């Protein structure tokens, strides 16, 4: 009923990225909190259609790296390039900060984030959650945004919940609503921070299925996850992060079947994969 389906938008994105410039590129990222060095020089490039799984033990810096990508955290060193456009910096006291707030907002609207705890806005209904940012940030027509939003909710299988409040939904339904909210921005790439970790095992499947569909549609995604099966199923590139550095990376086949480093072998055996 709506011409603007997920795969259509994705094709548009693909066309815009035929040049082969990575959608997301991180170069030599360093991030510390006070004296605690959390990320110690990470490079990463996600081209259009890439699905990158970030794995690693708790505290290895996966969330921090993901949050640096959309500038929720400010790395002290390194470059962030979105569609080849580098984030501009300015000095602020001893630390650096993004120089251009408009650029930051543009980057964020292009990289929709899905959070572990869903973070749906509690005072808004599901449909209002989905259209909030498209209308206020992108200036979309509310009626048009609502039609598109409804089609996205149907796509993730909760079209009947659009007038409910988040607190009335199950965890799995809330996370699917959060994914619809991310899709409503028609982003160039999506960032997932452990999208299934807050869910009971029987609810994880429905969210994993939605993410699989997105991967088939050719969405560019970076997914932080503890779910090795999902990583193996949806990712075309897996990065194993250990204490703030990339210990090993490669295709899922390489990493999961023939891990080279002992740390990755230990990690995989501890997760039972």
């Amino acid at each position, binding site marked *: 009923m709506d011409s603007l389906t997920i795969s259509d938008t994705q094709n548009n994105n693909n066309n815009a990225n035929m040049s082969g410039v990575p959608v997301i590129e991180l170069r030599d990222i360093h991030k510390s909190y006070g004296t605690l060095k959390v990320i110690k020089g990470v490079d990463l490039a996600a081209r259009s259609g890439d699905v990158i799984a970030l794995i690693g033990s708790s505290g290895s810096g996966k969330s921090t790296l993901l949050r640096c990508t959309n500038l929720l955290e400010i790395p002290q060193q390194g470059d962030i390039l979105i569609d080849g456009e580098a984030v501009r910096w300015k000095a602020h006291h001893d630390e650096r900060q993004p120089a251009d707030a408009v650029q930051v907002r543009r980057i964020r609207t292009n990289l929709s984030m899905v959070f572990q705890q869903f973070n749906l*806005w509690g005072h808004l209904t599901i449909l209002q959650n989905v259209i909030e*940012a498209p209308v206020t*940030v992108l200036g979309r027509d509310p009626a048009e945004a609502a039609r598109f939003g409804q089609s996205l909710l149907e796509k993730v299988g909760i079209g009947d919940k659009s007038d409910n409040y988040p*607190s009335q939904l199950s965890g799995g339904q809330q996370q699917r609503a959060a994914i619809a909210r991310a899709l409503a921005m028609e982003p160039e790439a999506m960032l997932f921070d452990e999208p299934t970790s807050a869910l009971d095992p029987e609810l994880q499947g429905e969210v994993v299925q939605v993410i699989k569909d997105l991967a088939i549609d050719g969405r560019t995604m970076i997914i932080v996850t503890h779910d090795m099966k999902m990583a193996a199923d949806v990712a075309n590139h897996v990065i194993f992060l250990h204490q703030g550095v990339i210990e090993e990376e490669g295709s899922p086949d390489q990493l999961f079947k023939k891990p080279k480093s002992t740390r990755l072998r230990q990690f995989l055996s501890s997760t039972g994969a």
Partner: protein
Amino acid sequence: MGGTNRPFHPVLMFEFCADPKAIDGLKWMACYLTTPKHQQFYFSFLIVLALIAGTAPLVMLLGFCGAFMRRSAILPIKWLGHIYTSMVRGVPDIVFFLFVPIAMDQAFEYTRHRILCPEVTEPVYRGNDFVVCTAAKLPLSSSPQWVHETYGFILAMIAFAVVFGAFAANTIDGALRAVPKAQLETARAYGMSERQTFWRIHLPQMWTFALPGLSNLWMVLVKSTPLLFLLGIEDIVYWARELGGTKTSFFEYPHPDWRAWYFLSLLIFYLLLTWVSEKAFAALTRRVSRGMATQGGKDATAGNAAEPEIAGARL
């Protein structure tokens, strides 16, 4: 207190009241309850309602100003906000009610004195007296009685607003802090500016946390209105005492000590007022906490009439 030049003009309600000595029973009561002084008594109820209605928006205004000052990144403004809230909250209300109107009155008159009468060389403070030139008086001595009363009323309103604004600032500041950080971070992650985040997410979610405190404050405000009496305003307490006291046969309508009845009417008035307020706040709480994952929100979405937590922390 002359009955002329007031904002309100008493009228003779019934013709048969011309000679009170000649009537009795219901007629006497009807005449008694509509004397000019009783009409002023009834009018003073309106003054109380006007005080509440006029003060509440000022309280919210000062509350938001105080809360924003306390949250300011600029240190002197932040300190000023903290000084305002902790000073007012740390001093007995009555002291402030007495201090603010007098201090403001003298500050206004002093400023006008300096501007309007530069030729006067004697100091304003002479011994125990505060003397300003005639032109600087507020209101001017030539102004009609109602201007004097309105001026006094406005000073009282500001005093109430200053005191309750500090409590409101505390409540609003706390409510703004109570909104989960993740909700705001998500707004920013979706490209909202600080301004959009505040208006679209922070402020709407803040009310759930602010309403219990604000409804509490409203109740205390309603119940503090008899303090008007302290400021020399002829409020309902003044009239209840005045009218209820024993009237000897020198008066037109002699009667024994009826103060208990008059104060009973005040009691019923306040009970009605607070009862209506509770209903209104319950409805408001249900409205703002719709969908919010708080107890109020759960009840509201389930369609139950949730009682607001009026009996929260005492001020």
